[in-house]
């Protein structure tokens, strides 16, 4: 039995390489590269990330290439990173969410004000904040999926509404870090740090915060979900071609609403992490998160036309921005150079995306 089976496979194996080799030879190196990038779109940002770390490491030496500085980058990108995870989901459906930053800030304000203004237990307040974020996201999704309004318009409106609600509700009052620490330390949970390899004075070494861990867990979890669950595949299908997805039995409306709701939930987590990062609850923070998250997603090689890109790309995109920001800062360059380079990266990333798209054409 087994011998027969082996013979059978031998025939197949011996026949296969011939055709495949001929096929690949015809395509050449560039075409194969193009194909590889099409299959693994996060490779480009990963390469840019590693190259930029090596570049600044070579330029700045141990000042940059230290556990302290490298983990500092993680801390500095954690908020944008978490929001970029939410933004990636939305952009994969060929949508866009301009209200991400506003949702994050309002959620953080709700967590703070519910605790301090109404005296709710802090656990309940955090849950309320997460629930409000999810609900706003779901409303976005409903308007887009059921009312058929364009995502750009819906979230442009929601951005203004949520931000105004945030200022009206909070009266723009900051809740101080010291009050939070004394009465509701749970709000600052995602900001608590732990060190690896610090010296005797507790200085230097790699510093991590819970928020950084949360960011990495969110990305790892979403990467798994997007690749290995029906929901994840459906999100790609909806982004690629909603009509085809509908015809193949995907519940397009349900997928879209759930994507925006999940995005709202993740933004609310970002709001929680924001309290940890800045210590206080400040209604004026996070104003540029929508643009910064879209930047991270685009640099991360996720196509704005939907349906293609890897969620990990957004993490690499956020880290690239973080590496450039700190690297250029440490090398003493004018801060405008950071923006100039990031602008170049955005256009470069979209150009590469267009080129990769040709492989399927």
């Amino acid at each position, binding site marked *: 039995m087994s011998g027969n089976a082996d013979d059978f496979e031998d025939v197949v194996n011996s026949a296969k390489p011939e055709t495949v080799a001929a096929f690949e030879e015809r395509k050449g190196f560039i075409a194969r590269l193009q194909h590889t990038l099409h299959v693994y779109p996060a490779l480009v940002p990963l390469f840019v990330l590693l190259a930029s770390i090596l570049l600044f490491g070579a330029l700045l030496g141990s*000042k940059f290439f230290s556990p*302290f*500085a490298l983990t*500092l980058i993680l*801390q*500095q990108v954690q908020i944008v990173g978490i929001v970029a995870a939410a933004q990636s989901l939305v952009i994969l459906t060929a949508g866009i969410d301009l209200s991400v930053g506003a949702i994050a800030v309002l959620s953080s304000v709700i967590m703070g004000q519910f605790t301090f203004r109404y005296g709710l237990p802090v656990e309940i307040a955090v849950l309320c904040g997460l629930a409000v974020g999810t609900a706003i996201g779901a409303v976005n999704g409903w308007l887009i999926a059921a009312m058929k309004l364009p995502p750009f318009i819906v979230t442009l409106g929601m951005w203004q509404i949520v931000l105004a609600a945030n*200022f009206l509700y909070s*009266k*723009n*009052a*900051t809740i*101080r*870090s*010291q009050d939070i620490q004394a009465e509701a330390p749970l709000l600052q949970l995602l*900001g608590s*740090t732990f060190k690896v390899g610090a010296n005797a004075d*507790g*200085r*230097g070494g790699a*510093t991590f*915060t819970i928020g950084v861990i949360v960011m990495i867990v969110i990305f790892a979890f979403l990467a798994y979900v997007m690749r290995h669950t029906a929901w994840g595949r459906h999100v790609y299908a909806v982004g690629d071609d909603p009509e085809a997805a509908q015809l193949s039995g995907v519940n397009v409306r349900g997928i879209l609403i759930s994507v925006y709701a999940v995005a709202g939930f993740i933004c609310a987590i970002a709001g929680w992490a*924001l309290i940890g*990062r*800045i*210590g*206080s609850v*400040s*209604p*004026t*923070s*996070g*104003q540029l998160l929508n643009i910064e998250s879209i930047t991270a997603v685009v640099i991360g090689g996720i196509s704005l036309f939907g349906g293609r890109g890897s969620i990990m790309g957004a993490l690499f995109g956020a880290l690239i921005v973080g590496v450039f920001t*700190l690297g250029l*800062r*440490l090398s*003493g360059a*004018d*801060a*405008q150079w950071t923006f100039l380079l990031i602008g170049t990266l955005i256009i470069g990333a979209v150009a590469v995306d267009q080129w990769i798209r040709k492989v399927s054409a």
Partner: protein
Amino acid sequence: MKKLLIGTTLAAITAAGSAVAGSHSGITACLITKTDTNPFFVKMREGAEAAAAEAGITLRSYAGKVDGDHETQVAAIETCIADGASGILLTASDTSSIVGAVTQARDAGLLVIALDTPLDPIDSADATFATDNFLAGELIGRWAAAKLGDDAANARIAMLDLAVSQPTVGVLRDQGFLQGFGIDLADPNVNGDEDDPRIVGNDVTQGNEEGGRRAMENLLAIDPSINVVYTINEPAAAGAYEALKSIGQESDVLIVSVDGGCPGIQNIADGVIGATAQQYPLRMAALGIQAIAAYAADGTLPENTPGKDFFDTGVALVTDQPVEGVESISVAEGTDLCWG
């Protein structure tokens, strides 16, 4: 109703506006702030409203959507001219670009007073009612130097400024601090051109917690031995404190700031900030309204504080650790006067 003669083609609109305001003396004043969300401007509006009610003036308030929203401010000035207002109190987002609209208002017979933020050039407005930001910086600089005593010669200083574009207020406070600390300013109109080795570096904060933390982290990455931190305002100081706390260095560092908002004063009591220079937005606005009332009554123009090209609305150093040779008020007094 005499004012109606000022307008020509705008007469009809003005009449409509004055009819609404008819319950008062007929004088209208405008307050145009950068935003209506920042507690500083909220307090400013409260001060203006109280003073306007007292003087029987109708106050109309306008604000940009965000700091830097220039277009909304221009539209507000145009609305005030059309409204037949007697005067405008303005905190400009874009101090040089707004000059065209301000000139238009002054040509139409309105008194324009720049509040808090001087226009560029400063004489584009009829008057400027503002904090002496250089003096504010100088006070905290002198305090920090006196507090350190002999160690001031070996200080490691972080300068947390406002924005890359170096707005006037950011430059005045920064340079004032350095002057007060005893550091050569090089060009006093530019931040960051000093070559004193005690300065570790300058970074920008956008005047908020997030920016304060990031800037502090960046400078700590350059030199972890920083022991004096100048901050543009108290939210930036709170952010810087979080960065120091995350590496366990918060107790070794002296943080100084400017503003005098209530959370900032509370942070002095809690030992987060060593000293801050407090400014008085409520007084600025109240004095501004009184100046417009006087101008509407008999054309009196406000006068500058002797020796300065603006009217100084005062600044006081708030600290619970007074030092010799620098006048200061206590945290309790600062709390009574704080805003936001």
